C-alpha cells in the first residue's frame, strides 16, 4: 500500500488546499448571506416563504448540475468562481432554515421580558434571541459544512481543484485506491470541520474563552496551513520548471494551461502536451477532468490554453450541426468555424480517430452473424450500454432510427465500466471508443456503419486565442500533428486501462514514438 499511497500523498497538498479554500469560502459566504436573511425572515413571513422556497429549490438541483450550470451562466468561466457560487447556493438552505426555526422557537415570554425591561429590538436580537437560537443555528452551520465539503468533490469537472480530482481520475482509470483515498480525505475533512465547529460552540456556550479561542484558531489555522502547503507545492513545481527550462523560450511569464476531459485518453494526451511544453521551457499547469462542454468554453475564455477535442463532438456541440459529413470535409468546416467564430486555432489532427463504434463480443457476433449495425435489428431483447452522454446525442437517434433498433434497452453507465459489462454479458453491445485498449484485449469487434450514422471523431489539437499569440506553444506542439495513429493511442490507453500502470507511463509510449 505504501507504494501506491506515495504518489497520492504527493498531490494531497494541492488537492486538499483547493478543496478547503473552496469549501471554507463557500461556507463563510453562505453564512454571510443566510444569517441576515434568516433574521429578517424570522420576523417577516412575507420574506420567509419565498426565501425558503428558493433555497429549497437550489437544494433539489443535483449538486453536479448546479455546478455545471454556473459555467455558462458566468460566460464560460471555469475554476474557482463557478464552483464557489454553486457551493455557496448549496450551503444557504440549512443555515437559513435553522436560523428561522431557531429564532421563531425562542419563548414568547422571554422576548417580551427583553422588551419590557427596556431592550431595543436590536439589543433583544443580539443579547437574547440569537444566543438562545444559537444551538439550532449552529446545527444548520454544521449541516451546511458537511454538505458543502462533500459537494466540493464535484467541483472537479468545472475546473476547480478539489479532492474530487482523485475521485474523478480514479473512476476513469479504475484506480480504486485513488477513489477511496479521495473519499476518505473528503469525509475526514467534513468530520474534522464539523467537530471543530461543535467544539467552538460548546466552549463558547460553557464560557471557556481559552478553549473557544483554541477551537477558533483551529478552524482558521488548519485551512490556512493546508492552503499554504498548497502554495508551497505550487511554487516548488514552478521552481522545478524554471530549473528545467531555459530562461527565455518565448513563452513569456505566464504559465501554459493544459486542459483535459475526464477519461484516460485525455489524461494521457494532456500528459504528452505537458511534457512537450516543459521540454521547450514553458511553465505548465494542468486542469484535468473538465466537463466535455465546459472545456471548450474554458478554451474560448482563455481559462485554458490548449487541449485536444474530437471533430464529431465539436460538430454537434459547438457547430450544432446535424447529420455528419465526410471526415475531411468535417475537419475543414470545424476548423474554419472555430477560427472565425471563436478565434480558436486548430493546430492540426493528431492522426487518430476516437469515434463511437458499436462493439459486441466476437462470439456474440459469430453466433448472431453480425457484421454491420443493421444486423442488430434481428437480435431479440437487445441491450446497449453507453456513457450517459451518448443516449442524448443526435447520432444515437440516427443509429436507432436508421438501423431500426428502436426496441433496444438503453443502459447508461460510466464509460469505465461498459467494456467489462459487454465482456461479462451484462449488455449485448456497447458504444465503445474506437481507440480503447480493451477492444482488443476483451476480444470485441466493431460493427460496420454503412449509413455513416456515427460521425468521424478526428482528434484535433486546439489553441485558445491567447495561445495563438504565443507562437512558442504551437512550435512545441507541432511535432505531435499526424504523429499519433490509432494503434499508438490504443497501446498507450492499454498501458493505463489494462496494465494498470500510471498515466505517465502511458504518455511515455507516445513520447518515445514521437521523439525519434
Amino acid at each position, binding site marked *: 500500500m505504501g507504494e501506491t499511497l506515495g504518489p497520492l500523498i504527493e498531490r494531497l497538498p494541492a488537492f486538499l488546499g483547493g478543496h478547503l479554500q473552496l469549501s471554507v469560502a463557500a461556507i463563510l459566504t453562505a453564512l454571510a448571506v443566510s444569517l441576515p436573511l434568516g433574521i429578517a425572515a424570522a420576523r417577516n413571513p412575507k420574506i420567509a416563504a419565498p426565501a425558503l422556497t428558493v433555497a429549497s429549490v437550489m437544494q433539489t438541483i443535483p449538486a453536479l448540475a448546479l455546478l455545471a450550470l454556473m459555467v455558462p451562466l458566468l460566460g464560460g468561466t471555469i475554476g474557482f468562481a463557478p464552483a464557489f457560487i454553486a457551493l455557496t447556493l448549496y450551503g444557504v438552505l440549512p443555515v437559513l432554515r435553522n436560523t428561522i426555526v431557531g429564532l421563531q422557537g425562542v419563548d414568547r415570554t422571554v422576548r417580551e*421580558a427583553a422588551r*419590557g*425591561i427596556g431592550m431595543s429590538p436590536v439589543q433583544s436580537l443580539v*443579547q437574547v434571541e440569537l444566543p438562545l437560537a444559537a444551538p439550532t443555528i449552529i446545527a444548520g452551520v454544521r449541516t451546511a459544512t458537511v454538505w458543502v465539503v462533500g459537494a466540493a468533490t464535484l467541483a472537479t469537472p468545472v475546473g476547480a481543484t478539489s479532492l474530487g480530482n482523485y475521485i474523478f481520475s480514479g473512476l476513469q482509470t479504475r484506480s480504486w485506491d485513488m477513489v477511496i483515498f479521495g473519499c476518505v480525505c473528503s469525509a475526514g475533512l467534513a468530520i474534522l470541520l464539523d467537530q471543530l465547529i461543535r467544539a467552538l460552540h460548546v466552549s463558547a456556550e460553557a464560557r471557556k474563552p481559552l478553549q473557544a479561542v483554541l477551537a477558533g484558531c483551529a478552524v482558521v489555522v488548519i485551512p490556512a496551513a493546508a492552503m499554504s502547503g498548497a502554495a508551497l507545492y505550487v511554487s516548488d513545481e514552478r521552481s522545478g520548471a524554471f530549473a528545467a527550462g531555459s530562461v527565455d523560450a518565448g513563452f513569456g511569464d505566464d504559465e501554459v494551461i493544459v486542459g483535459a476531459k475526464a477519461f484516460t485518453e485525455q489524461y494521457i494526451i494532456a500528459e504528452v502536451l505537458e511534457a512537450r511544453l516543459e521540454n521547450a521551457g514553458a511553465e505548465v499547469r494542468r486542469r484535468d477532468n473538465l466537463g466535455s462542454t465546459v472545456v471548450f468554453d474554458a478554451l474560448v475564455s482563455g481559462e485554458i490554453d490548449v487541449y485536444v477535442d474530437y471533430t464529431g463532438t465539436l460538430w454537434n456541440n459547438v457547430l450544432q450541426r446535424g447529420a455528419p459529413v465526410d471526415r475531411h470535409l468535417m475537419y475543414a468546416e470545424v476548423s474554419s468555424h472555430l477560427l472565425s467564430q471563436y478565434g480558436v486555432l486548430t493546430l492540426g489532427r493528431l492522426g487518430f480517430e476516437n469515434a463511437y463504434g458499436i462493439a459486441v463480443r466476437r462470439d456474440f457476433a459469430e453466433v448472431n452473424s453480425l457484421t454491420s449495425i443493421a444486423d442488430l435489428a434481428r437480435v431479440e431483447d437487445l441491450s446497449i450500454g453507453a456513457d450517459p452522454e451518448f443516449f442524448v446525442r443526435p447520432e444515437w437517434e440516427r443509429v436507432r432510427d436508421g438501423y431500426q433498433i428502436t426496441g433496444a434497452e438503453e443502459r447508461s453507465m460510466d464509460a469505465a465500466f461498459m467494456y467489462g459489462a459487454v465482456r461479462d454479458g451484462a449488455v449485448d453491445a456497447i458504444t465503445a471508443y474506437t481507440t480503447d485498449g480493451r477492444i482488443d484485449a476483451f476480444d470485441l469487434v466493431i460493427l460496420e456503419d454503412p449509413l455513416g450514422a456515427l460521425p468521424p471523431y478526428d482528434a484535433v489539437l486546439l489553441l485558445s486565442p491567447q495561445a495563438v499569440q504565443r507562437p512558442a506553444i504551437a512550435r512545441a506542439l507541432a511535432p505531435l500533428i499526424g504523429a499519433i495513429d490509432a494503434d499508438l493511442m490504443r497501446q498507450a490507453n492499454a498501458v493505463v486501462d489494462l496494465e494498470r500502470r500510471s498515466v505517465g507511463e502511458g504518455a511515455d509510449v507516445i513520447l518515445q514514438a514521437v521523439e525519434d
Partner: protein
Amino acid sequence: MILQVDQLAKRFPGGVKAVADVSFTAGAGELVALVGESGCGKTTTLKCINRLHEPSAGRVLIEDEDIQGLDPVAQRRRIGWVMQGDGLFPHMSAAANIAVGPRLLGWEAGRIAARVDELLELVRLDPAIYRDRLPRQLSGGQRQRIGVARALAAGPHLVLMDEPFGALDPITRDGLRADFSELQARLKFAAVMVTHDMAEALLMADRIAVMEAGRILQYDTPSALLAAPAGETVARMLESPLREAERVGALKAGAAQNG
C-alpha cells in the same frame, strides 16, 4: 405623585375590550393591588403603563409626565418590570439577569457588580452561591426573587409586578411578601402589583382596585373595602379569605382546648 392612571382603555384589534375606564394612582412607597378573576384585564393594564401595549384611550402620567410623549424604550428602562412567570433569560446567570437594566443604562462594570451583590443580599440570596447560577439551576421561589431583584436593579421609582409571588409554597411566599414590603418601605418606590389572591392584596396593598371584565368595581383601602364592599362580587371575593381565616382560627382554638 409617581403614577397616575386616568380613564385608561384598551381595545384589541378584533374588538376585545380588555380594559375600560380604569383610574388609580400610586405615590412613593405605596403599593396598589389589581385584583380580579382570570382574563379581567390586569396584565393588559400593566402593559399599557410600560407601553408593551399602546392604550386606546385615557392617560398615563409617570412623575407627572404623559408617557405618550416619551420614547417607549427609554421609558421602560426607568420602570421595574416583574413578569407573570419569572421571565428570566435562560442563557444568563442570575447576576447577568439582574445586571441587564444597569447595563442598558450604561453603568460601569464595577458599579454593576457591586449593585448585583447588593440586590442578591436584598432578596436574601447569598451572592457567593447564587451569583453564577443559571435560572434552571434555581428553585421557583429563587427565580422569582431574582425576577424582583432584576426589576429593582436600576433603582426605579416605579415597579410593575404581574403575580410576582404566584406558584410558591405558603411559607416561601409569606417570607418573600414580608421582604418585599420591607424593601419598599426602605427604598420608597411606587408599585403596582397584579394578583389573583385577595388575601395577598389585603395584606400588602395601600389601595386595592377590584376588577371585573376590564372595569374597576371598587377602588379603596383594604380596611374600607372590608368595611363596605361595593356590591355582591366584591363581597364574595372578600369572603373566601375571611372564611378560611375564621375556620383556621376555630381549628386552632379547638386544638388548644383539647390539648
